[in-house]
Structures are given as C-alpha cells and as structure tokens.
C-alpha cells in the first residue's frame, strides 16, 4: 500500500503551474501518472508475488521520472539507484530465496484488506489536504534552486548537499544513526549464535 500512497502523493497536487511546466512535460506527466496508477493497482491485485515486485519497479521508476519533470536531477538519480537498484533487488532477492512459484498463487491475500484500503484512503485524504492547503493553486518555486545555474550543471546537486549538510544536518545525522541502529539490530536478530 505504501507505493499506492506514494503515487497518490505524486498525482494529487495538480497545481498546473503555467511557467515552470511546458506542454511536453505536462503530456509526459499525464501519461506517466496513468501508467503509475495502473501499475500500483496491479501491485496489489496481481496473483503472482514476483509480478507484484516487478510492477513496483514501474511505479518507483515513474516516481523517478516525476523527479526529472520537477527538474530535481540528483533526487531522480538517487531514486533510480536506491529504489530500483537496491530496494527492489532486495525484494526480488528475498522473495526468490524463500518462495517464488511461477504461475498463480491464491494465498497472497489476507483478512487485512479492508484495513489496508482504509489506511490508503486516510493517507490520500491527509496528503491531499496538506498539499492543497500548503500550495493551493500557486506555482512551484523550487526555492532551493533559486539563484543557481540551470540543468547540465552541478548547481542543483550543490543546492541539495548544502541543504542536507547545512540546514538539515541534525535530522540527516539522526536518520543515519537510526539506520545504523536498524542495521545492527537486524544482524543481532539474524545471527544464530
């Protein structure tokens, strides 16, 4: 369901800024949004667990494409590297290592379907409200990029790194610590001795 929420977050803020987006970008966004919604639905409705993971590739790749449309090149490449190159690969790896029957399996559903739908709708409502409330019909401004050079330069990557290692240094380091703790925890749980 996470992926569905992700797409919703991407699709809802249809603020249609006239100047930042040009027509080709809008067309690409429309096509990619439809593909992503279809793929996200297939993730939860397909009867084959590996197919579900592969549909997730389409969804997460679409998110990366979305970042490119928003002119956030560094974030887009990170999306491809981390989600497609590592997270999905670990999904597939884990699924294939444990059980990955070819063909249809009937035991992929459980009795939490209704709760899942509820959570998904609630998330959609909260995110839509938050985004519309904060941005309304105003144009996206790319605040971090103001004053730096356009595409094909390092300016935007530098803006991202300045933000991470300046303004947001403490949250960033806390997240690193959290990940490290989770990593050590996983090793402790997995060790047999």
């Amino acid at each position, binding site marked *: 369901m996470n992926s569905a929420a992700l797409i919703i977050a991407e699709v809802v803020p249809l603020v249609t800024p006239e100047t930042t987006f040009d027509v080709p970008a809008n067309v690409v966004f429309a096509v990619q949004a439809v593909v992503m919604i279809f793929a996200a639905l297939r993730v939860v409705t397909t009867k084959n667990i*590996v*197919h579900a993971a*592969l549909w997730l*590739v389409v969804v997460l790749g679409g998110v990366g494409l979305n970042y490119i449309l928003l002119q956030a*090149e*560094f974030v887009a*490449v*990170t999306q*491809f*590297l981390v989600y*497609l*190159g*590592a997270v*999905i*690969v*670990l999904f*597939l*790896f884990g699924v*294939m*290592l444990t059980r*990955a029957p*070819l*063909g249809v399996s009937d035991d992929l559903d459980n009795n939490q379907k209704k709760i899942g739908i509820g959570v998904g709708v609630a998330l959609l409502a909260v995110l839509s409200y938050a985004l519309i409330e904060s941005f309304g019909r105003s144009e996206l401004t790319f605040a971090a990029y103001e004053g730096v050079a356009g*595409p*094909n*330069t*390092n*300016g*935007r*990557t530098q803006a991202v790194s300045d933000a991470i290692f300046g303004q947001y240094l403490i949250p960033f380091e806390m997240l690193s610590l959290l990940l490290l703790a989770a990593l050590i925890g996983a090793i402790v749980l997995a060790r047999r001795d």
Partner: protein
Amino acid sequence: MTQAVLHPILGLELAYWQETTIRVLLGLVALLLLTGGAVYLYLFKFVSFMQSRLGPMEAGPYGSMQLLAEVGKWLQKEDIFTEDSDKFIFGIAPAVVLASTFLMFVVIPAGPNAVVADLGTGIYFVLAMSSLSVIGILMAGWASANKYALMGALRAGGQLIAYELPLILAVVGVVISAGSLNLQDIVAAQSDGAIFGWTGIGNPYILTQIVGFTIFLIAVQAELTQTPFDMPIAESELVAGYQVEYTGIRFLVYFIAEFATAVAFAAVASTLFLGGWQLPGAWGISDGAMNAIGPIMISTKAVLLVGVVFWVRFSLPRFREDQLQKLAWKVLIPLALANIVVTGVMKVVF
C-alpha cells in the same frame, strides 16, 4: 555533433530533436564498434595467443569478420521458450539488461561537445544505470523455471549488490578531488591540474587516487561477472547460470550487454582516472578538432582497460562464493572508506 561542430561541416541549423537523433545514432555506432572491436581483439585473439593458438582465422582477413559470422549464426537459431517459463518476463529480461548498458553510455564524454547528454550528475547517473541490470538478471533467472538459472540469478544479485558499494565508494575519492559529479568537469579538473606545479600532463587521478583506481577495477571485474568473479554463470557448477535457457537472439543480447558493459566501465574508468578524452597537457587544440581527437583518445584508453579486464579474466581461477563476499565487505569497502577519509583530509590541507 552539435551545432558548433556541424555548422562548418554541414552548414545547417539543427533542431533539438535532429541534434539528439544524430548524437544517439553516433553514440550507438561508437558503442557497437568498440564492443565488437574489444570482442575480436581480446576474446578471439588475445586469449588465443595466451593459450598458444591462433583463434579464428577463416572468416575475413585474419578472422576479423568472425564476430559477424557468429551474430549471423545466433540470429538464425530458433527462439526457444521452455514449457513452464514465465514467457513475458523471460522475453523482456535481456532487454532490461541491454537498456541498463546503453543508458550508461549516455553521459560518457568523448570530446568538448561529443556527448549524448552532459548531465550535471554524470558519474552518479552512470552508477545508477549500471545497477539496474541486476533486475533483468533476477527476472531471467526466475522466469526460466530452472533451478540452475535461479541459483545463478541469486548469486548475481548478491554479488552485484556487494560490489556496487566499493564501486561507488571508489568513485567518491575522485569526486572529492574534482569537486564535481559532472564527467566533463572531472576531465577538465584533470587536464587543468598540476603535479607540484608541473603542468606537463595535467594531473590524472590515477596518480593521487591509485587506491581508488585499483578498487574500481576490482569492483568492475565483479560487476561484469568476469572470472575470477564469474560465480553467477559458473559453467562447471551451474551450467550457465541465469543464461542457461536462453538461445538465439536473446542470448546474443546478453552477450552484447556483457561486453558493452565492459567497454562502458572501461570508458568511465578512463574518464575518472586517466584524463578522459583530453590529450596529456595543453596542446592548444581548438574545441572543434578535439571533438574528432577526443573519441580516439578515450577509445584507446578504454580498449586498453578492457584488455586489463580480459587479462585478469583469463589468468585467474574462480573464487569461492564466501571468498567473494569476504573480499568485498572486509577488504574493499573498508579500504575505500579509508581512501575517502584520506582524500577529504588532503583536499582540506592542500
């Protein structure tokens, strides 16, 4: 290749899509020529001489048309899908691997303007795109409905993830030195650099980043699943790993992808560590001329580095699976991290 280059030669103004089409087509030609050349030079001839034999001699002068004959043979073969396989996934898996390879070539510069797309995130983009091939390999292994194929795909998954880390960490040293992710900036930083004030050959990063260069080459060897890291397709253990059920054109696609990736990584290594398309030192050559000389420079460097990969491939026996993982996690990654720390300190001090 760009307006600046084509104006004097063709004398016409090009629209964006025309320029992009020309760039992509030239990039594809360069990719296939280099890949074919590397296969003939190393897989057919170099290894034959290492093993005291002549290699292919019949097709064309000195066997030089052998690769075309092989391609013709593969194209004629029947396209077989096994009974239980997942037909669609099995069919598109080679395309995923090939797409990942082709996308790597997009940002590799061969001259001041001779690049398909000069992205700001250059080297990061290359590494991200190279990591996508694992998805195709896992798809192939699973959809083949063959336990050897699945085992091979799982080995490939574990290996490629493990060696992606030293690969990326080895590059960080160069990025710190050059202060940019953009490959053109990295090339410029090397040609503008100086060795203790001497600017004769610039400052290729192989001199200051020799540790990073070594780690990068070892990791590339593993990413390419070439011996001594060829566990995913180990023919004596897994028949042919994830490729076991493939025939004809789909096998050909894997073959092209394997060697094209070798060329791509070699070109990236030459750009990062050997000065890229620049001539050593400032010769005062115009940008237009460098667009013609640059591709020759980077091709030469890349083909020589592919030679190193094959030299190692045909010299060393295969590692064990646990030795492979130990080398990545216990040797290469700590070494690469130490290299980053030292590079960072040196960057601040000097």
